């Protein structure tokens, strides 16, 4: 392996791990604002360790919605980590018992960094550096954010309720703003998903609208395959 590609992978991994990891502050704050305890927020960051699912769970608790639907929504968001795993299995080359700790790190950010590397060795390095730095920072900031917010009388006064949606927007943004046909399809799916979820909101318990939004993907796939 070239030394330069290895250090580039380490730099990418640390950059993403620390920057995104700091958003654990937002998750901790959102979780406690939503009515989860500090311990529950920390348990989610330690053991679920996938931001979108964690925010989804907090959102359902905040809306007083069905916990069953909330769990289902969080798991449906977690499905993509399984799909990343399909892609990463070859790249990481881990099977059997060695896959057990590695699997916990297969999320948006680690996959993105790994797939951005030019060769397999630096992809593995990028994955591991992102995983470890993101895991440490995300859990530390979840603790700080949740414990800090539970001392704040009114988190909404600090604008913390907008941090969840803003986080998702920032994650989605680069994929929606291109000028190529793929970005146009993604914009269509994003608009469709948002519209379906809002349309379903008055008629279903909180948590369900987000599940229903997946039909936007089916609509586009079916339309394209005809």
């Amino acid at each position: 392996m070239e030394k330069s590609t290895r250090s580039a992978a380490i730099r990418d991994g640390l950059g993403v791990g620390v920057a995104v990891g700091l958003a654990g502050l937002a998750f901790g704050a959102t979780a406690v604002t939503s009515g989860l305890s500090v311990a529950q927020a920390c348990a989610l960051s330690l053991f679920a360790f996938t931001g979108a699912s964690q925010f989804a769970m907090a959102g359902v608790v905040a809306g007083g919605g069905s916990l069953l639907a909330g769990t289902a929504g969080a798991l449906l968001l977690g499905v993509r980590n399984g799909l990343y795993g399909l892609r990463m299995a070859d790249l990481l080359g881990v099977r059997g018992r060695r896959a057990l700790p590695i699997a916990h790190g297969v999320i948006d950010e680690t996959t993105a960094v790994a797939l951005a590397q030019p060769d397999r060795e630096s992809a593995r390095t990028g994955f591991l550096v992102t995983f470890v730095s993101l895991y440490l920072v995300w859990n530390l900031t979840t603790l700080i954010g949740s414990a800090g917010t539970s001392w704040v009388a009114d988190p909404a006064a600090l604008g913390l309720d907008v941090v969840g949606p803003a986080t998702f927007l920032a994650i989605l943004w680069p994929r929606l703003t291109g000028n190529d046909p793929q970005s146009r399809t993604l914009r269509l799916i994003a608009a469709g998903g948002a519209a379906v979820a809002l349309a379903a909101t008055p008629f279903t318990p909180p948590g369900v609208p987000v599940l229903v939004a997946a039909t936007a993907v089916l609509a586009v796939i079916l339309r394209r395959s005809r």
Partner: protein
Amino acid sequence: MNDVWWAVLATCAGCYALKLAGLSAPRKVLDHPGVQRFAALVPVALLAALIAVQTFAHGRSLHLDWPRTTGLGAAVVALLLRAPFLVVLTAAAVVTAALRWLAA
């Protein structure tokens, strides 16, 4: 143990199981074009739905919360200016907090 703890534990266990299932899946599944397409597209629909619901829904009712919506607008401006991730989040929270403070 209350209901929320059960939901938290189920989410933790399920999210880990999904990650492990992907890494351990047979190759045939990976090569299916439908699986690849769904994998690429479904997060976009779900994340967009979460943005919409968390911005405009309160329980089962829809309402326009001006400070929150404007805060999200500030995030859009920050993204258009290619601001870093944390600046985007900070801009959204600061604008929302400032509007609430002015209204109070």
